[in-house]
């Protein structure tokens, strides 16, 4: 059962720095304490990024994350801090988001990583559309992480730890897509009666073959589309005799296949006569 938990803010940072600086008041307060905190934080030049947003507010949080990243500046030596510099202690610009391309740090270097069973279509069908939408992105991020891991393992010429995780995620994604397609199909059938989402029709191509032509979206009508008018959805007169011949060929091959099947079944029945329930093979 897959669910990606987002990385939480580590506790040691909570008391030292104001992380997401969003107002000037906070900045002024931080300026006062900057000299005190500088000594503490001097050794911590790099900052662990955070993506601790709850699942329902990710739109709002994403925008605030973007703004706060822009406001950061590179200050790498602490003796710039003086009363003259009344700015808050800024740390290096965090490398936000890239750690989602990698596994949890405790799994780094392991030969095998435990993973649960993939989601089944039955389990996905009881979930609401919003949950499926979120799950899609969870799966996507997990798949990206595993693909990165696979590529890195190939680069290092080492075996990838637990490659079955990739298969599980891909199957989960396919099943989710199936469930969403089912819901779309049922709604469309109910409201419009259309069986297919994309319009199309049976047409004959230039070789005389009948095929399902899938429509494409165009900005101009067909009678103004010179390239479309050049396409021939009919067979020329010299090709017409061959349609009958190819139909005959197809029917002949179908009959031959059926007779071959029947002949094989007869041969097998002769080789392995069916025993009655009373006959035992002792």
């Amino acid at each position: 059962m897959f669910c990606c938990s987002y990385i939480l803010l580590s506790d040691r940072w909570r008391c030292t720095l104001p992380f997401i600086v969003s107002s000037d008041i906070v900045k002024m307060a931080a300026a006062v304490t900057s000299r005190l905190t500088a000594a503490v934080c001097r050794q911590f030049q790099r900052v662990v990024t955070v993506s601790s947003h709850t699942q329902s507010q990710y739109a709002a949080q994403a925008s605030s994350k973007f703004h706060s990243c822009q406001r950061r500046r590179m200050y790498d030596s602490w003796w710039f801090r003086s009363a003259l510099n009344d700015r808050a202690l800024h740390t290096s610009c965090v490398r936000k988001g890239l750690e989602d391309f990698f596994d949890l740090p405790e799994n780094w270097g392991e030969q095998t990583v435990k993973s649960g069973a993939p989601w089944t279509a039955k389990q996905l069908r009881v979930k609401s559309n919003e949950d499926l939408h979120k799950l899609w992105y969870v799966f996507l991020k997990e798949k990206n992480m595993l693909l990165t891991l696979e590529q890195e393992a190939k680069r290092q010429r080492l075996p990838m730890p637990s490659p079955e995780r990739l298969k599980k995620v891909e199957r989960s994604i396919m099943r989710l897509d199936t469930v969403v397609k089912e819901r779309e199909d049922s709604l469309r059938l109910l409201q419009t009666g259309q069986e297919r989402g994309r319009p199309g029709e049976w047409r004959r191509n230039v070789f005389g073959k009948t095929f399902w032509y899938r429509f494409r979206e165009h900005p101009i009508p067909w009678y103004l589309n010179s390239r479309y008018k050049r396409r021939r959805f009919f067979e020329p007169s010299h090709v017409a005799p061959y349609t009958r011949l190819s139909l005959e060929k197809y029917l002949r091959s179908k009959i031959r296949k059926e007779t071959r099947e029947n002949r094989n079944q007869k041969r097998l029945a002769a080789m392995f006569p069916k025993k009655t329930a009373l006959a035992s093979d002792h």
Partner: protein
Amino acid sequence: MRQISMRLTALLSMAAKAAFPHDYRYGTNRPWTIAAQRLNPPGKKRRKVFVEPIANEDWHVLRGDTVEILSGKDKGKQGKVAQVFRRRSWVILEGLNTHYRYIGRSGDYRGTYIASEAPLMLKDVTLIDPTDRKPTDIEWRYTEEGERVRVSVRTGRIIPKPVYQRRDGIIPQQWKDGPKDTSPEDTLQKTFTPSLKTLEEEVMEKMNIQEDRRPRKSYWY
């Protein structure tokens, strides 16, 4: 867009699947291994093997069952089924019907001498009645609850389905969820309420996305 990406993946998977001729002789080795490639190089034709056609529901020997051998070198011995090949009606038992061979030879080193099991035909094995531990004939019958079970013809005892360990070593009853696993309660919790809205419309509502643009007139042909 989603349809295009799904078609691409289908196409790629089709290309990745290995194609075998219709008269390929499938053996105990998986077809993609080097041993199988050595036994069945492309272009090699072997005499066709005829296998008694048994429907999947009529198959009565399962992996993990204890069966007795009726003919062959180890006649009369009982063993556990390790592998089943339905397409060729083969059954491989653990440690029985073995022949010996060297494995992993290189240069002068002759390799390790190991015992490897040969497959047995389905008609040469029978299931064992748990009551008296004797070989018996099997039939598929329905219980009063409607469950389809294997029943021994001689004594009428139900033979339970064997519990076999998964190849990855996981025991479902002792599984502990990892940090990325969803708990069973969360997975089975029902959050779906059927409505006449598409997924896109519902998600836009929840995320307060206002879409005021209207699609341009387009032509489908």
